[in-house]
């Protein structure tokens, strides 16, 4: 693997996250915010795979998050399966849901995908409520979702460090998968489709297959972190499907930089802490976020990571070209 700006930035972020508890482990609220940031970072990165890299307007991503959370929540409460298996189950269930949604939706084009998936997203909440007899808990939700166990140690809400590092491991795994994916031939194919669908197709790329695979992978990653979220917050309910999460994840992607790996990770941390800083503004906070969102799109379309790309660090040789920034690891030789 060639050392490049993406890897350096990602490694830097992961190292900073890994050592942060040295300073903050006493401050459990900050730890909580950091854990939430990591959760959003995974969700935003997965969504960016579709929106940014794939140009696939899948708006059902928060739905996959909920499916992962509910899969493990229902299985561990009703069937008593271990939360560790639940993580896997969440990923698999969401991945499958991704394929199921993808099969009809991805045959459509561009904006129709957005509308179809948005409609699907809107229908998950009602389905959870209707499915109360299947053990979804209806509108009230599921409670309490059992915690992870490691030998005789039980994860608990007083000690956040184990949660923290478990989440960091999941984040690292997801970032690794994402990085590998973006720089694989599959990644090249969906980026090609995004840039110019007709040309990509005329060169032998199967649009449907490529979009379906990336949708499934993104859904599985989102489901995985959704499952972690369920165990971490103990209670899940259809209220998580409100506009909040939907909009905040999008703001994170915009802020960090769409299709600028690992921009969404940066976005997730910045926005989570900014949101917390702005608490004194109460309801004006969202007014500010709305304005911020528009301004970012207008003035800084590549987000913070776009700025990072422009910084010249002599130590690492000359500045990467824009194109290399995007796909530096595509094999130069086979």
């Amino acid at each position, binding site marked *: 693997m060639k050392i490049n700006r993406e890897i350096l930035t990602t490694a830097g972020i992961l190292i900073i996250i890994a050592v942060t508890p040295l300073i903050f482990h006493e401050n459990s609220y900050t730890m909580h915010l950091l854990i939430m940031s990591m959760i959003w970072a995974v969700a935003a990165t997965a969504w960016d795979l579709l929106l940014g890299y794939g140009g696939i307007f899948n708006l059902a991503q928060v739905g996959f998050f909920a499916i992962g959370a509910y899969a493990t929540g229902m299985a561990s409460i009703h069937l008593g399966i271990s939360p560790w298996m639940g993580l896997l189950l969440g990923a698999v269930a969401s991945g499958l849901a991704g394929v199921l949604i993808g099969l009809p939706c991805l045959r459509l084009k561009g904006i129709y995908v957005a509308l179809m998936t948005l409609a699907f997203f809107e229908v998950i909440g009602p389905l959870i409520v209707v499915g109360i007899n299947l053990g979804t808990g209806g509108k009230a939700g599921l409670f309490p979702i059992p915690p992870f166990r490691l030998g005789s140690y039980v994860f608990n809400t007083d000690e956040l460090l184990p949660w923290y590092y478990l989440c960091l491991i999941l984040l690292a795994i997801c970032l690794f998968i994402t990085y590998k994916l973006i720089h694989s031939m599959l990644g090249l194919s969906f980026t090609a489709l995004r840039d110019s669908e007709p040309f990509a197709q005329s060169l032998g790329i199967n649009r449907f297959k490529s979009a379906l695979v990336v949708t499934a992978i993104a859904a599985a990653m989102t489901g995985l972190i959704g499952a972690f979220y369920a165990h971490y917050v103990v209670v899940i309910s259809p209220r998580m499907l409100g506009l909040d*999460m939907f909009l905040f994840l999008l703001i994170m992607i915009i802020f960090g930089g769409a299709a600028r790996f690992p921009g969404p990770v940066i976005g997730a941390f910045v926005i989570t802490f900014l949101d917390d800083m702005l608490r004194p503004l109460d309801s004006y906070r969202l007014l500010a976020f709305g304005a911020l969102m528009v301004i970012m799109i207008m003035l800084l379309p590549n987000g913070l990571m776009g700025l990072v790309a422009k910084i010249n660090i002599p130590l690492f040789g000359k500045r990467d070209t824009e194109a290399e920034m995007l796909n530096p690891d595509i094999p130069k030789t086979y």
Partner: protein
Amino acid sequence: MIRNSKLIFLTVALLLFSGVFASPSFSSEPIKIGAPLPLTGDYAADGEHMLMGFQMAVDDLNASGGLLGQKVELVTFDIKNLAAEDVSSASKYLIKKEKVDAVIEGYGGWGPDWLAFGANSNIPFFHGSGSSTANELTMKDPKSYSNMFQYFSPETDYGVRAYQGLVSFDKKYQYPNKKIAIIYGDLDWDITYTRAVKDLAEKDGWEVVLDEKVPYGTTDWGPILTKIRKEKPAAICISILSVPDISSFVKQFVENPTSSLLDISYMVVFKEVQDAVGEGLQGVMGYVTSYVIPTPEGKKWKIRFKEKFGFEVPLTTPPSTYDATMLWAKAVREIGDVKKYDEINAYIKANPYKGLLGTYDFNNPGQGVSPSDTFPIAYGQYNSKGALSFFGVDEFELPNYMNPAWPKK
């Protein structure tokens, strides 16, 4: 253009950072009360009212020299649409970061959520969920929930009251049949409440002709009204805690009514419903979770509220958060140290508190208040002037009952 964009950035930066510096600093350490409130999102309207009750209470405390000589400060936390992670964040933020000495919420977790997050500490924690599930959970594990107090009666009690209210009209109204239609939103609150009404009605030999769950956000009631018109029940009981939903129901029902008494549950207290429906609301009934008891202090408080905020106090929400704050403050004064949480909790549990809405008595295994003569749930009906008239508190004497606006067919 460049100057322009810089200007925009500056404005935004100012806007963003003004928040950081907005929180004032005090020389002596203030006592902090944590208030998780829905300030944005679908429940923001109620959040505003809850906040007013807190503001009254905190201002009153500080005007009288603070609590144990210290200034009292309110720390809010926006719990948005009440998603679990926001409720969880709220507890962590308020307890762990802000280190508040009490948490008081209006409603927002529907019970179990708060127990999940409040029980990790022992600071006094008041929740207004009105959830029977929360009481049951507390009973099962009294030790870990010893700091959790539910200062609203649970929804099942409202169901009992509403049913009593409805059938007590038999003498005056002469029900044409014994059919009842029950419609409810998909919240736990609605479901449990209407279940209580339904069980009582069936025991009394009523036929439940419609038992229908509807999603929140329903504003077109055509299909439901068709069913109602087909069955012509003598009573309709609907519970959905949303102004647009309930207002549109009443409005569309009144357009082509059946001769049914209409009970819109708790929504009867909302002034917005009254504004929205107007004349059509005459004769519509419902229970009132609590209301300011017309004692001299209560009347004075209502006047003060109007002076402060410029409008008549809404029936239940601001007085509730006011009462909860004051009853905690009293316990703190009695114990003499705000940090002796266990002693404060024990005091609150052992000593009933007389507030605006009645006497709060947590001395029961569920640590929640329940209706009684001294903590009444009222039953009300809109009279022709558009104002709410209460029916007897002790007995159902129905002094002001009147027939609904719509004709009896």
